[in-house]
C-alpha cells in the first residue's frame, strides 16, 4: 500500500473499509479567505491556471469585472464580484474567491459512484482522480457550492485540487502564494479558524462591521476553505454563497435510505422468487399432455 493511499480517509464509491483510515496523523489544512481584504485582482485565478497548466478560455464582456459566470472545468478559481448598496447610500463592492470548499463532509464524494474517483486525504483535501472518474456528473449534483465542472471532451469532471501536488511536497497552494494582499492564507484548520475569528473581532471592534464573522458551514461538517465576511448573516450577497449549505437532501435520500431500501427490495425480490420456486415449483401444463420442452 502506497504512502499516498495511507493518507486517504474517504473514498467515493468504495466497498468495504478504507485502506488507510486512521493510519496517519495529519493536521487538516485550510484556506482562509478574508473577503474584507480581497481586492478582486484575480491573481489567484491566473496562478491557479498557470500552476495547473489549464488552457485559457475565450470569454466575453458581461457588464462585470467577473471573469466568467461560474467556475469551469478549466477555471477552478473565480472571484465573484457583487455591487452591494448600503442603507446610507454608499456602497460596498464585495469580492469573493469561489472555489472548491473541500468540505469535511463532501457532497461530491457522497454522490460519486466510482471507486476512488474522489478521495479525501487525511489533511482534508478533497481530490478528484480523473483516471477513475466515469463522468456521470453525480458529484455536480452532490455539491452544494456549484463547483465541479464537466469537460465534454474528456468526459471527466474537474475542480480545485487545493494543489494537492504542492501541498504534498510541503508547498502552499498556488492561489495562496499569489494573493497580493494576503486576503488568502493557508495553514491548519485550527490556526485558520483562530486567525479568522481574530480578524472578525477586529472588524467588529475597529471597523464598524457589527455582523462580521466567519463562514465555516457546519452543514457540510465545516470546510477546508473558510471565509471572513463583513456580514456573516448574509453570505448570499457574496455571489451566492449558500447561507446554510449541506449535501442536498435528495442526494442524501438517494445515497442512504433509498439505497438500502432498494437493496433490500431487490434482495427481497430475489429471495421471494427463489422461495416461491422452492415452495411451489414451476407451473406445469395439466389438462392433457404436459409441456414437452420443460
Amino acid at each position, binding site marked *: 500500500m502506497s504512502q499516498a493511499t495511507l493518507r486517504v480517509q474517504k473514498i467515493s464509491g468504495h466497498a468495504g473499509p478504507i485502506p488507510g483510515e486512521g493510519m496517519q496523523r495529519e493536521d487538516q489544512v485550510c484556506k482562509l479567505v478574508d473577503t*474584507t*481584504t*480581497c*481586492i*478582486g*485582482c*484575480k*491573481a489567484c*485565478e*491566473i496562478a491557479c*491556471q*498557470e500552476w495547473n497548466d489549464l488552457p*485559457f*478560455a*475565450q*470569454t*466575453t*464582456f*458581461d*457588464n*462585470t*469585472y467577473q*471573469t466568467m459566470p461560474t467556475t469551469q472545468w478549466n477555471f477552478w478559481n473565480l472571484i465573484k464580484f457583487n*455591487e452591494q*448598496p448600503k442603507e446610507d447610500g*454608499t*456602497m*460596498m*463592492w*464585495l*469580492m469573493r474567491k469561489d472555489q472548491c470548499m473541500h468540505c469535511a463532509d463532501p457532497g461530491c464524494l457522497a454522490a460519486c459512484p466510482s471507486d476512488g474517483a474522489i478521495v479525501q486525504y487525511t489533511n482534508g483535501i478533497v481530490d478528484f482522480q480523473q483516471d477513475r472518474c466515469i463522468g456521470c456528473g453525480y458529484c455536480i449534483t452532490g455539491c452544494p457550492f456549484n463547483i465541479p465542472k464537466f469537460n465534454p471532451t474528456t468526459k471527466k469532471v474537474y475542480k480545485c485540487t487545493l494543489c494537492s501536488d504542492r501541498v504534498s511536497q510541503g508547498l502552499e497552494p498556488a492561489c495562496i502564494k499569489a494573493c*497580493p*494582499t*494576503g*486576503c488568502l492564507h493557508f495553514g491548519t484548520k485550527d490556526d485558520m479558524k483562530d486567525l479568522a475569528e481574530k*480578524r472578525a473581532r*477586529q472588524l467588529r471592534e*475597529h*471597523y464598524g462591521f457589527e455582523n462580521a464573522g466567519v463562514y465555516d458551514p457546519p452543514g457540510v461538517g465545516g470546510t477546508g476553505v473558510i471565509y471572513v465576511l463583513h456580514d456573516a448573516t448574509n453570505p448570499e450577497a457574496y455571489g451566492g454563497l449558500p447561507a446554510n449549505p449541506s449535501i442536498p437532501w435528495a442526494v442524501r435520500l438517494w445515497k442512504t435510505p433509498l439505497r438500502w431500501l432498494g437493496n433490500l427490495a431487490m434482495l427481497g425480490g430475489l429471495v421471494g422468487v427463489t422461495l416461491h420456486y422452492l415452495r411451489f415449483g414451476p407451473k406445469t401444463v395439466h389438462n392433457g399432455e404436459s409441456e414437452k420442452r420443460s
Partner: protein
Amino acid sequence: MTNGWIDIKNTDMMLIEGGNPAENHPCGFKWAIEAKRNRNAKMIVVDPRFTRTAAVADLHLQIRTGTDIAFLGGLVRFAIENSRIAKDYLVNYTNAAFIIRDGFKLPDDGLYSGFDPATQTYDKSTWNYAEGGDMSGKAGGGTAVPHAGSHGQDAHAAVPPALPENVAYDLTLQHPRCVFQLLRQQYSRYTPEMVEKITGIPQDQFHKAADLFTSIRKDGDTKKVGTIIYSVGWTQHSSGTQTIRTAAILQLLLGNVGRAGGGVNALRGHANIQGATDMAGVFDLLPGYLKVPNPNDTSLDAYLKRITPKPSKPGPWQSMNYWGNTPKFAVSFLRAMFGPAASKENDWAFDYLPKVDRNYSWIQIWDNMYRGSVKGLFAFGMNGVMIGPDSKKNIEALKKADWLVVGEIYPDETSEFWKSPGITPEEMKGIQTTVYRLPCAGFAEKDGSFTNSARWLQWKNAALPPPGDCRLDQAIVAQIFLKVRELYQKEGGKFPDPILKLAWPYGDPHNPSLSEVAKEINGKALADVTDPATKLVTKAGQQLPSFAWLRDDGSTSCGNWIYSGSWTEAGPQLARRGTEDPSGLGIYPNWAWSWPVNRRVLYNRASCDVEGKPWDPSRRQVWWNESVQKWTGHDVPDFKPDSNPKEHLGPFIMNPEGVGRLFMPIGAVADGPFPEHYEPIESPVANLLHPNQSNNPVVEKLKTPLDKYGTVAEGFNIICTTYRLTEHYHYWTKNNPANVELVPEPFVEVPAELADEVGIRGGEKVKVTSARGEIIAKAMVTRRIKPMMIDGKKTYQIGIPIHWGYRGIAEDEGRTAHTPTNLLSPTVVDPNAFTPEFKGFLVKLERV
C-alpha cells in the same frame, strides 16, 4: 516615494487619491492592508470611481476628476482651522516661519503676482523670501522689510533671481507675510461649501474625511503618522505638479514627512519609470537629476553656477544644501560620458552636450514631427500611437516622418501606424515613412537593474536566451551607434566629435554587458582619491564606495551620482539578497540597494524632534546618539551624521533652505508658489474661485489643426477619465492569452443613471466622442460611479480603461472595435512636468 512599499505598514492613516494601488500595484498594496490588519489603520480613498481600492477602504469619496487641489486645499484649511497641525515640526522643519517679500500677491483672481499674459509666463521675482533676521514678535509692524529695490528689477536681469542667504523669519508664525499666514490666507477660500461645489464631494462626507485624516494630530498628538499615496491620477492633469505640492504641504503641516508610515508616496506607473527618470530618460535632465544645459550656459562654469544652489535660511539655522556638490556630480558625469576626451582644457567636453532651450517633451515630439521638423524616431518599447494623447495626431505625425525604428517584442500599433484602421490602400501608397521593426529581448532574457518606486535598485538575471533572431536591446543600440560612428569616421559630417569621442569601453563593443555598464554608472576613481575626514583612499581604477567620493577635478568618473554605491569594490550591492529586518519597520537594509546611499526613508532626520529624539519611540528609524555624538539608527540617516541637533541643521538637506517648502520660491515651479485650483483644460464648469481665470494660466494649448479642445456648448457635456485595470498592463498584455481571458474587451464604465438617460444597458455598444476622436466599446453600467452635483448642476463622469488598440489577441480575432482610448485624450500638458492631461476631458456618449 519618500518612503517605501513595506513602510506603508507602519502607518496609522492613509489618504489614497490620484491612485488606485489595489488595481495597479496589488503586491505593494499588501502593506496598506497590513497596516489595517496590524495597526487598525484607516484608509480614505478619493477617486472619481468606486475602485477596487475603494472596495477595501474605510471611506470613499467620489471626486470630480481634476479637482484634487480643491479637496486637498480644503484639508489644509481644516487642519489649520482646527489646529490639527504639528506645530514644532512646522516651525523648525518647514519654511512656515519664512517671511515673503512685499509685492507678492495671492491668486484671489486666479493669478499670482508677476503674470505676463503675452508670454503666458510669470515673472517670479516676488515669489521669494524677504532678506533679514528674526521678525518674531514684530508682527504688529505689518510688513516685512522688503529687500530694497529688489522686485521689478529681477524681471529684466540676465541672471534669474536668487534666494536670499539670510532669510527673514518669525518663529511665532504671526507675521502677516510669513509663509504660514499666507498659506492660511490662501486656503481660507477653500471652505467645505466651496469644496463641495467644485469637487462634488458633499460637505458631510468632506468633513468626515477631513476629521478622520487629521485625527492623527488631534489634541497635540505627535506619535501617529499618516501617509498620502498617489499615482498618475494626480500627475496626468494640467495641474498635476501642484496637486502633489498640495499633498506635500498637507504632509508638512501634519509633520508626516520623513517618518516611518508617513511621506508623500508616488507609486509611479511601471517597472522602471523611477529608474528612467533617475537616469534622465527625459529631455530636461541629465542623470541624477542634473538640469540639462541651456544655450545661456556658455561654459561649464556658467552652467554649474546656474544649477548649483546656495543656502538660503534664517541666520541662526544651518542648511546642508547638498546640491552645493553639483559640480562634482556634473564633472564626474562628463568624465563617464567622454572618458579621456573630457579634460580640464576643454571644459570637460561640456560643449559636446546638446544645449536645450525649450520644451522638447513627449507631446512636442509629435507636434514637431507633424510639423515636419522631426524626421526620424526611435521607439524602443514605447507604443507612442497608443499612449497618445490624441493617437490620431501621432499617427498623422508618423506619416510625415522619414523613418521610424521600433524595437519591440510584440507587433504594436506604432510600428503598424501605416495600416491603422481607416487608412485606404491608396493612402498607404502615399505614406513614405520607412519603418524598421526590430525584435528585442523580453525581460526574462535580459539582465540589468530596475529601480522601483521605493528607489530600490534590483539586479535581475537572464533566465534564457532570446528566441529566434531577437537581439538584446543594448546590442541593438550599440550596433546602431557604432554604425553611425563608423559613418562619421569615414565620411565626416556635422560636429562628429562627441560621437567619435564618446567613451565606449566595453569588452564586446557590439554587445556591452550590462554589468560593465552598471559599474560605469556607479563610478570609479581615475586617480587615487582620499577622503579628507577618514583619510581612506580609493585607488585609481577602483569602484567608488559612494558619491561622497566624487570630485570636480576630473579624478572621478560616475555615470549617475545618485546610483554611486550601487556597485562598489565589494561587488554588486544592487544584487544583495539579505532578508534581515532588525528594526521590524520593513527597512531590509541588506536587500538590493536603495538610492541615495542605501537610504530607505528620505528626510528621516525629520522623524525626530528638534532634540533628535524620535517623535514615536515605537517606530524609531534614526536618532541622535548623544554618547557617540552621531546620528545612528536602523536606516541610513538622511543627514550630516555628526551634526548635533543644537546646530539646527535643516532635515531637508536637498533644499537650500534646509527645510520643507510650504511656499515654493522663485523658479522651482512655473505656476505659483502655492497650489491653486484650476479647472482641467476641458471642464464642464468655470472655475468657481475665479471664473475669469478658469484654467491654469501658464498652460499652453497646441496649435496644429489637429489640436482641438471641446466645450460643453459643443455638446461635450460628460467628464471622461481614463485608467488602467489590474488585469492588464498598458498595451502589452493584450498579447497575453491569460490576461485577455480575464478582461477580453474594451469597455466604458457608465453611471447607471446616465445609462438610463441615454438608453443603454450593460453590454451594449456605445460611442464615446471627444473633440479629437471617437471610440466604440461596450458599456459597463454600474452604480460605482454616481452622478455628481457640481455647483448645483447634475454632472456625469465616465471612465474608460486604455488597454486595447488594433493589434492584440482579441483585436486580431475581430472581437474589438480597434479604437485606442487615447484617440480621445487632449494634447495638453502640466506646465512643470509636461505630463499630458489623460485623466480629465470632455466627451459625449451615444448608443451605437
